[in-house]
């Protein structure tokens, strides 16, 4: 349990993080952790269907959830007086969820629609899914958190029940409470609500071996879009790895703000792209450093790729000047402070650092870790992680409505 009192406003943020995400699934059952995120809002032995949302809304609260590769996260924002309500509801659905056929069938339809929205009819969503599937074959990060459509369609209530009994238990969860509360009262209430819930035998997670890749992987797609796109993925360290802060700063040098190297080069000087971003996947195990470029109509992918490669090479060969390093550190400090403006932001950051980084307290030393990164550190990690042979590249070309084609092969 993590508690952070903030009495500036009479509100409360109550988050429950379960250490189960899509990496804990099996091939053929992908998307189960995410489907569960939906099912948890349904019926329990004590709360009829739809009542959980109704009780929270009537109390002036809002509730939501999210799933990714390492975790499932439930969050509620409520007036401070509603702590008894939310502890009762969360403790109840941790142990008394009802998983019947109609609920599972209806939520499968909703999730199928969510998949169409986020992936099937969204080019960036499709490309991101392909990027991970290509970079991580035979690895749980290779399947999408939302699941393959055929898997979503095939889930049974028995699959769900088994998953629930395996992973939803107090010894697999972290509670985070931030906002206006008295610590003793919260502790007493949580002991009362959760104290008697039995632990589960959580299966040990066998950390998969990182993929071995000796030459670039490459795919090309044709889609109904007015302009080409390019996605690149380089293997990157886990969130808790010592190299993560240095690579995060390298990313900021390349993509952070409108004065960043790639924004200046590709958007302003060369007028090649309309949208670009780069970031490290914040995963508990090694993931990808992702780069996304959406080009202007008529511009050539090769030119954009060359510009990106030139900037990556510069980062590998030349130290970032002190003024530029100070600039990106200032930007990261701003981002950190913005994340701490609300009770909800604080709860989310704390939970994330605990579940993915392994230590909630490291949230408070993160800025120092970033401040301590040197230009030499950035050059070292750039050389280590931006190796073209360990890259996955996906190109999207406009097809004007023609049939989709996919090609695979090594880059020339």
């Amino acid at each position, binding site marked *: 349990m993590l508690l952070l009192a903030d*009495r*500036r*406003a*009479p*509100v409360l943020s109550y988050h429950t993080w379960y250490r189960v995400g899509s990496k804990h699934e099996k091939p053929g059952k992908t998307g189960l952790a995410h489907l569960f995120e939906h099912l948890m809002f349904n019926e329990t032995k004590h709360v009829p269907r739809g009542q959980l*949302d*109704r009780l929270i*809304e*009537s109390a*002036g*609260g*809002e*509730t939501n959830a999210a799933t990714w590769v390492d975790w499932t996260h439930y969050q509620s924002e409520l*007036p*401070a*007086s509603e702590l008894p309500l939310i502890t009762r509801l969360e403790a109840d659905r941790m142990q008394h969820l009802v998983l019947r056929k109609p609920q599972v*069938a*209806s*939520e499968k*339809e*909703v999730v*199928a*629609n969510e998949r*169409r*929205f986020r992936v*099937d*009819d969204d*080019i960036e969503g499709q490309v991101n899914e392909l990027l991970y599937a290509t970079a991580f074959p035979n690895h749980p990060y290779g399947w999408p958190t939302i699941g393959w459509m055929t898997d979503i369609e095939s889930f049974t209530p028995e699959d769900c029940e088994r998953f629930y009994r395996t992973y939803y238990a107090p010894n697999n969860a972290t509670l985070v409470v931030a906002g*206006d509360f008295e610590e003793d009262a919260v502790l007493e209430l949580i002991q009362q609500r959760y104290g008697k819930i039995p632990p589960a035998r959580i299966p040990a997670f066998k950390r998969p071996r990182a993929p071995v890749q000796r030459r670039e992987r490459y795919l090309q797609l044709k889609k*109904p*879009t*007015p*302009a080409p796109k390019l996605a690149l993925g380089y293997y990157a360290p886990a969130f808790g790895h010592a190299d993560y802060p240095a690579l995060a700063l390298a990313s900021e040098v390349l993509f*952070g*703000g*409108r*004065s*960043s190297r790639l924004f*200046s080069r590709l*958007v*302003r000087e060369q*007028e090649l792209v*309309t*949208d670009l971003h780069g970031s490290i996947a914040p995963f508990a195990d090694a993931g990808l450093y992702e780069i996304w470029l*959406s080009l*202007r*109509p008529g511009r050539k992918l090769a030119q954009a790729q060359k510009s990106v490669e030139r900037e990556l090479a510069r980062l590998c060969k030349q130290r970032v000047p002190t003024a530029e390093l*100070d*600039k*990106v550190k*200032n*930007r990261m400090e*701003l981002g950190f*402070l*913005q994340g*701490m*403006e*609300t*009770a909800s932001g604080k709860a989310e950051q704390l939970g994330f650092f605990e579940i993915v980084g392994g230590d909630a307290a490291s949230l408070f030393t993160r800025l120092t870790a970033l401040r301590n990164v040197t230009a030499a550190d950035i050059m070292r990690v750039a050389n280590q992680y931006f190796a073209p042979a360990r890259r996955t590249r996906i190109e999207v070309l406009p097809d004007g*409505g023609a049939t989709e084609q996919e090609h695979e092969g090594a880059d020339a």
Partner: protein
Amino acid sequence: MKRQRNPALRSGTQRPNSIVTGTGSMLLVEADHSLPLVHVGVILRTGSTHDPQGLAGLTRLTTRVMRMGTRTLSTQRVEERIDSLGAQLSVGCAPSYVQFGGVVVAHNLEPFLALIGELITAPAFRNRDLARAKRETAAELIASCDDDRTLAARHFRAYALGKHPYARSVVGTTQSVRAISREHVLSQYQKHFVSRNVIVSMAGAVHEGDALRLCDRYLTFPKGSAPKDRVPPPRLPAGRRLLIVDKPKRSQTQIIIGTLGTHALDPDHTALQVANVVFGGLFTARLTHEVRSVRGLSYGASSSLGHDRERELWSMWTFPAAKDARQCIELQLRLYDEWIKHGVRPGELRRAKSFLVKSHAFEIDTAQKRLDQRVETELFGLPPDYQDGFVDRVRRVNREAANAALKRRLSLRDQTLVVVATAKELHKELSQLPHLGEVRVTPFDRV
């Protein structure tokens, strides 16, 4: 008993007053020293509704070029300085206002304000920057065709409101942007960036006295008032009309259905807000329940009530699979019909009011949010107690008032439907929707 620790959360009478700067602009400050951050806004009371005929996008383009440099700073230098200060700056344009909005670590507030001041009061308006901004805008317009939701929203406004200024795209069209010259930009700037048209806002780790001193030093505008807002009340064409935005290979549709709603000072506005929460403003609302929870037709289903100085649009949004589009639209129209004809039920009304009253704490839990409310009050000319009186107004809404507002303000006859879909697959089916007076198809990539 819940404690009230922040004085700003107590009552309207204790809210800080607005201050008039040396050049006559309005300054609003909301202090909160718990984090070393300051949010800054320079807001104009005029927006894209002031774009001249045929020059849609002029106001937005003007602000965009202002960010591209001053008489002494190039674009790159401006951006370097913003990032180096540990700041963010966004320049946004809406139908009724323009905002230079930023946030900065508190110890760099003064140089940040100095930079914003230079951008706003001494823009270079270089020809090459204008040409670049026009090329960027044209490219962004084309790129926006990738996003089906954006397509639906843009076409909905245009199709629903026809030639009214609210129908106009804030960004403009490729044609209107091409027609904009440096003289147009200069003229728009000179007319609107005048002292009595400007509101300056600061929230966070700043004292009122310092804020005024910095304003007087860096944010000085030529004295004067901007041209009056001449937006007429919008009207919706008669009957039920359907526009299909034709895009290939859609497995899913994006659907927006709507009609005219209210303006912020409409006596029915609060009652309609409450009624809208019942219909589509919550996860357990009728629309969400029937479309998502019961039938699983769409991942999202919600309704919203816009507001501005004149009547804005009320609309509902869903995105079912293409195969379910007709079923979903028919269900939505039936739910809408029942809502207007039979109104809200007592239990629904009680829950909606309870949500709005109790969740109000989240509308004012940060200095930035409290300041946003004060800015909105000034922008839309609302009474001084409008925001603080919200909870009391909601409490006073009864079933009769909610149901009367529905009947008075939302039309059973005049409705606009916009569907992003593959026309060859759905045109015939959607043309059979009940009581359609008009069906049109437009290509998705016409911008």
